[in-house]
């Protein structure tokens, strides 16, 4: 995946600063609670939500099981419609393909509509290295780009910023990239939106190349689909002469009838809307309408490896709605940046270590970045059992050993031995109880020190339950 996040510290350390940043925590809390409450109301409107969710899950599972077949179908349909399909095994190959396509047009500027796949591959940085400037046109992505920041949410990449911060970013940075912010810009939403509109309009009208992602690819006709709220995506898709779409291979669905299911599941789960304001669909090229050239880059980048894992593959059902982020108590406190990936929150905690492997410190720590409370599973519109996958990945991380896990393994084995020998356990309990007056309030040692940092340990009882039972019942 992207080089942007290389060298990230493990999640607990990355989260520490976020937890102590009261402004950030306030921004996150306000935003996630607002959207989660709205989502709950939007979902409650449908009495067949459970059936829709099950249908979404089944369609995705079926497609993933026959992914090879449906991808070939996509390629045939896109080619027949006048487009060109490119296959990219990893991020580097995808970036190379896109850079070459842009260079072939002779252009050095491109407009982009929010695409997680290109965030994942670090396309903007790769293009920059080739002398090509990429302009993000999704409002939140624009804020992130102008602020030299990273996205911290799937749907609302600038969720960690409040209005005042956005105004300051617009005022100081817009001029560097194009049309400057209007004089005396305030932090009212209407003024901020107008400033972004004017700034972006200039780019839309000038750009000859557009780069997009896609929410879905319909195999039967080779049609790509983007759902969005602002209309900036539609500008990006229709105005340039060349359109390049970079899409993860798991985004394919077999037919238009299947799309019906997801166009209900996605907006309600993500923006809490019955229907998103803009749904754009494009199929190859059409004379006299839209881009003259269309290229589809199909991105693997770890997806077939993920598919090979029987438990973990369900992560590929994800439709990037972000409902799991908005209900996650860990995401709410730690923020998106701590996850070290374009995919933060619960889905990121299971997707990133699968796409990238668990070799790095951050990826090995992500499966543990959850209290397993299950709120993510409950809201997931395609029923990804995120807690199940987290535990499954923890097993992989524990098996591979490394930092801290050798000691932990020994401790777990000792605990199991003790717990498998009731007499020994009883002796240990009695010892603890009989020395209870001697135990200090704050304890040393890795686990106990962390615990007694902010919490009192419970008072040990005078006798364990099994001794009470022996005296009173046996």
């Amino acid at each position, binding site marked *: 995946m992207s080089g942007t996040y290389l060298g990230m510290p493990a999640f607990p350390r990355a989260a520490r600063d976020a937890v102590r940043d009261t402004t950030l925590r306030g921004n996150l809390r306000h935003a996630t609670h607002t959207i989660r409450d709205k989502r709950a109301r939007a979902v409650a409107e449908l009495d067949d939500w459970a059936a829709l969710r099950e249908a979404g899950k089944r369609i995705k599972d079926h497609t993933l099981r026959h992914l090879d077949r449906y991808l070939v179908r996509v390629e045939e349909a896109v080619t027949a419609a006048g487009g060109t399909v490119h296959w990219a095994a990893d991020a580097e190959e995808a970036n190379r393909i896109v850079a070459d396509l842009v260079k072939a047009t002779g252009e050095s500027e491109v407009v982009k509509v929010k695409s997680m796949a290109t965030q994942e591959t670090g396309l903007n940085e790769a293009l920059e290295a080739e002398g090509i400037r990429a302009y993000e046109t999704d409002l939140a992505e624009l804020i992130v780009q102008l602020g030299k920041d990273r996205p911290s949410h799937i749907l609302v990449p600038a969720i960690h910023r409040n209005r005042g911060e956005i105004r300051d970013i617009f005022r100081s940075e817009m001029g560097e990239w194009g049309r400057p912010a209007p004089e005396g810009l305030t932090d009212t939403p209407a003024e901020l939106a107008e400033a972004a509109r004017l700034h972006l309009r200039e780019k839309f009208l000038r750009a000859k190349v557009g780069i997009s992602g896609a929410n879905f690819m319909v195999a039967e006709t080779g049609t790509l689909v983007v759902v969005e709220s602002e209309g900036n995506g539609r500008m990006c898709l229709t105005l340039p002469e060349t359109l390049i779409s970079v899409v993860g291979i798991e985004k394919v669905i077999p037919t238009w009838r299947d799309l019906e299911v997801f166009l209900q599941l996605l907006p309600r789960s993500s923006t809490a809307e019955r229907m998103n304001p803009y749904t754009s669909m494009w199929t190859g090229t059409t004379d006299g309408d839209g881009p003259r050239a269309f290229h589809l880059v199909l991105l693997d980048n770890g997806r077939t490896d993920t598919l090979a894992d029987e438990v973990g593959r369900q992560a590929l059902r994800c439709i990037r709605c972000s409902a799991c982020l908005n209900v996650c108590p860990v995401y709410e406190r730690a923020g998106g940046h701590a996850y070290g990936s374009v995919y933060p929150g619960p889905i990121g905690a299971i997707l990133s270590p699968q796409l990238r492997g668990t070799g790095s410190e951050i990826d090995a720590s992500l499966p543990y970045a959850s209290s*397993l409370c299950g*709120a993510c599973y409950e809201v997931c519109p395609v029923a990804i059992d995120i807690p199940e996958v987290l535990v499954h990945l*923890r097993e992989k991380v*524990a098996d591979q050993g490394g930092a801290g896990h050798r000691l932990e*393994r020994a401790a777990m084995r000792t605990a199991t031995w003790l717990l*498998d020998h009731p007499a020994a356990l009883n002796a240990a309990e009695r010892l603890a109880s009989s020395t209870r007056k001697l135990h200090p309030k704050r304890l040393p040692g890795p686990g106990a020190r962390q615990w007694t940092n902010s919490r009192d340990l419970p008072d040990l009882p005078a006798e364990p339950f099994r001794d009470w039972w022996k005296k009173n019942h046996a």
Partner: protein
Amino acid sequence: MRVALFATCVNDALYPSTAIATVKVLERLGVEVDFPAAQTCCGQPQYNTGYRRATEPLVLRTARAFEGYDHVVTPSGSCVAMVRDNYPRIGAKAVAEGRGRELAGAAASLVPHVYELTEFLVDVLGVTDVGACFPHTVTYHPSCHGLRMLGLGDRPRRLLEAVRGLELVELPGAEECCGFGGTFAVKNADVSEAMGEDKIRNAMSTGADVLCGADNSCLMHIGGMLRRQDAPQRALHLAEILASTEEEPLR
């Protein structure tokens, strides 16, 4: 009806009062309770931390300890969730790895017999008024496993509402995790503490004397924070409230 108490390791070693309270409530309702001494721990801490193989002896031990009982009752939603959701998974994985046929069989046979205390009282015994008296203001924290994995719903509330003298007050953000999460509390201590702080702030905002829950692992975390901050509120297990009567009031 042969009923076994599944006390759990946390209650056995740290909170015997909860296990004793469970026995008292069940006996008051005419249930004959047994405590199979071969039981220890369901293996959840090991399993959830990624040590599935180390869990297997405990799965087998737990399943065998409760063989032959009609019902197995425990005052811990999270241990029931471990048995219901994960024992079949652990058994299936062991079989897929070419061993553990016995483990899978034993694990599967335990599943339909295990009940969380409030499920057993409401669904099996069909009671909500257990004859308890506890004249205090109480707010209820539904632990995640009971709430989402077991779907306990309003069972704990109905039991609390039937307690004489008890005033139940709404806990803001009740369905949010308290931040315990087993080894999560140690591995991600900062986030865990931040979640716990929000939980106790909400709990104290209710003005209740007692924060009640049905899982002592969560209460150890929440209660430990309340005590560290010298809060007037205390954390208490549901079973202990249900065991409290006019003749034998709780503390």
